[in-house]
């Protein structure tokens, strides 16, 4: 009685009741597919958020007006920041003590941070004002730019926004407040279509700007289009659109990844001094540290993925119990058949093997189909997230499904094998 023979008997047993076998398989299928898909969604979310954070730029710190507590509000539309991630502050300066007077972020703050002697770890400082939902038109075509940024040329490097076509603007352009603009891919597509936008003039809320460059597309971030952006010299934007109010944020680029923390303490010192923050006063600004942000977010996402996986694992367990149930029914139903098999000389091992093989086959087929469904499902975007399959989750789900077949099948199979032939034969 070879293993192949046992498998053939098992296949025959399963095909004898196709509907039942299919439904039992479905339980495991759903469990395995859920494990793979949910873990993939968790991984996808994690990747997309990490990407978004990286899109903020390498080795950068974002200094923003602090909105907590009293003090000046965020005029000038500084609430939205470059990558589109709206997360809790990664670090908030100071405690909750009284605040004498909240000062806003100014160009002078930015200049002070750029001082090489006070802040040796800082590579560049880019003051940023931004205006959201600015109506831009070109020859009748119009588009509402989600985010219009006025800044310095260093912004492009610091915020990781290279130009794909045309050129950047330069420090001269900032000083001269030239009305030139670098637009994102989405803006270019909407306004110009197939026309080359370089050198053309667009009008933003009545003010003409000349397009000098198009940013390299950075891709959708899931919730917000990172390419729906336009970047112009700081002075030009302040002059024509936002006014000379406070800065929305200051983007500070550190000299290297290892210098980020040093740069943070340096600019903290500068700002504390300039804003008159003492040990007892709450800071009126906050600094977002990209690395810290990323750590916090990955930890959160990790928990989230484990949670999703646990929910899916429960459905796999329920599928396993379904197998036990159906195998018990099958054994009871086929008691007489088991008796006949024993009467004509089937050893206990053969009966045990047959029912174990049936249970394992049910769960293995369910597992394989589940993997297939998981694969297919992960091709689609789920709730704005592109799932990323984690190979270990496939191995784990498949392994667990086989183990479930063996484990949950062993009780009914044992019961079948232990039947006394005389009693089994009398069973009606």
């Amino acid at each position, binding site marked *: *009685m*070879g293993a192949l*023979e046992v498998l053939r008997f098992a296949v*025959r047993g399963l095909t*004898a009741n196709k509907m039942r076998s299919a439904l039992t398989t479905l339980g495991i299928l759903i469990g395995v597919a859920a494990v793979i898909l949910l873990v993939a969604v968790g991984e996808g979310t994690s990747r997309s958020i990490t990407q978004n954070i990286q899109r903020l730029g390498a080795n950068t710190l974002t200094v923003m007006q602090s909105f907590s507590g009293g003090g000046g509000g965020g005029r000038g539309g500084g609430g939205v920041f470059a990558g589109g991630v709206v997360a809790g502050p990664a670090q908030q300066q100071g405690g909750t003590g009284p605040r004498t007077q909240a000062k806003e972020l100014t160009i002078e703050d930015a200049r002070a941070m750029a001082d090489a002697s006070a802040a040796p770890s800082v590579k560049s400082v880019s003051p940023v004002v931004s205006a959201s939902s600015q109506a831009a038109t070109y020859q009748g075509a119009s588009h509402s730019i989600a985010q219009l940024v006025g800044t310095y040329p260093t912004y492009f490097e610091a915020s990781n926004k290279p130009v794909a076509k045309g050129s950047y603007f330069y420090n001269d352009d900032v000083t001269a407040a030239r009305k030139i603009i670098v637009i994102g891919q989405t803006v270019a597509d909407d306004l110009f279509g197939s026309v080359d936008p370089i050198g053309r003039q667009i009008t933003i809320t009545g003010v003409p700007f000349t397009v000098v460059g198009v940013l390299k597309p950075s891709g959708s971030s899931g919730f917000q289009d990172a390419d729906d952006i336009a970047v112009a010299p700081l002075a030009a934007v302040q002059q024509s659109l936002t006014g000379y109010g406070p800065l929305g944020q200051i983007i500070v680029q550190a000299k290297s990844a290892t210098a980020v923390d040093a740069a943070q303490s340096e600019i903290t010192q500068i700002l504390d001094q300039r804003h008159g923050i003492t040990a007892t006063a709450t800071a009126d600004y906050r600094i977002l540290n990209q690395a810290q942000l990323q750590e916090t977010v990955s930890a959160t996402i990790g928990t989230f993925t484990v949670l999703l996986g646990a929910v899916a694992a429960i459905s796999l367990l329920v599928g396993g119990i379904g197998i036990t149930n159906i195998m018990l029914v099958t054994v009871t139903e086929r008691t*007489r*058949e088991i*008796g*006949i*098999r*024993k*009467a*004509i*000389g*089937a*050893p*206990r*091992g*053969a009966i045990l093997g047959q029912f174990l093989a049936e249970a394992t086959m049910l769960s293995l087929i369910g597992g394989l189909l589940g993997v297939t469904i998981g694969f297919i499902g992960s091709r689609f975007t789920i709730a704005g997230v592109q799932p990323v399959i984690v190979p270990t989750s496939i191995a784990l789900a498949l392994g667990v499904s086989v183990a479930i077949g063996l484990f949950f099948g062993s009780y009914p199979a044992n019961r079948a094998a232990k039947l006394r*032939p*005389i009693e089994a*034969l009398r069973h009606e």
Partner: protein
Amino acid sequence: MTAPEAPVLEVREVSKIYGTGDARVHALRGVSLTVERGDYVAIMGASGSGKSTLMNILGCLDVPTTGTYLVDGTDVGALGDRQLAVLRNRKIGFVFQSFNLIPRMSALANVELPLAYGGVGVGARRRRALAALDQVGLGDRLHHDPNELSGGQQQRVAVARALVTAPSLLLADEPTGNLDTTSTGDVLRILDRLSSAGRTIVLITHENDVAAHAKRVIRLVDGRITEDHRQAPVDGPPPRLAAVAP
């Protein structure tokens, strides 16, 4: 493991008691019986006489409460579970009253089954199963499921399944109990032919017509043998062979 002259069956003072206390039922009360190779024995008795119990013990499906039982000189009581399975597979062929074919398996697959459990290779298995089915005249019904066969045909498949392993002993428990006269004739003719070919057969029945085919008739009443009557010599043909097989 056995001398050639050892009897196929040797039952010594076997008794079987079911239940305990007041509900004790003596199904067998000290039965001794020896069946020689080539014999054709009919065990007769009314229902409740213990003939089914005896049959189950002879078929190694049940164990006696007391007494010993030898098949081909081997003491069955001393065998373990696995060895019993091998014994049932190699030495005994069963034919049941209710056919007991495995549903949803073709006639051929049913006949091949004991060989599969006996570890016979696929090629040899097919060849032997085909030969056995041919012997019972069902060479043209190989791929029919049991529910596509008549009662007589099903019982002939069961006979083919019982003799495909070339067992020392063919046990038939009321093989014609569920059959009409024509099918009964068919099955009995096959048994007669097997007997004349030297196969040892023990048949249980309560019909005199069926018992008339046997070389030896044993009557069982209340768990005891009351009559042991030989109708034909062990090494001769069965008494009705000429009558049914022209």
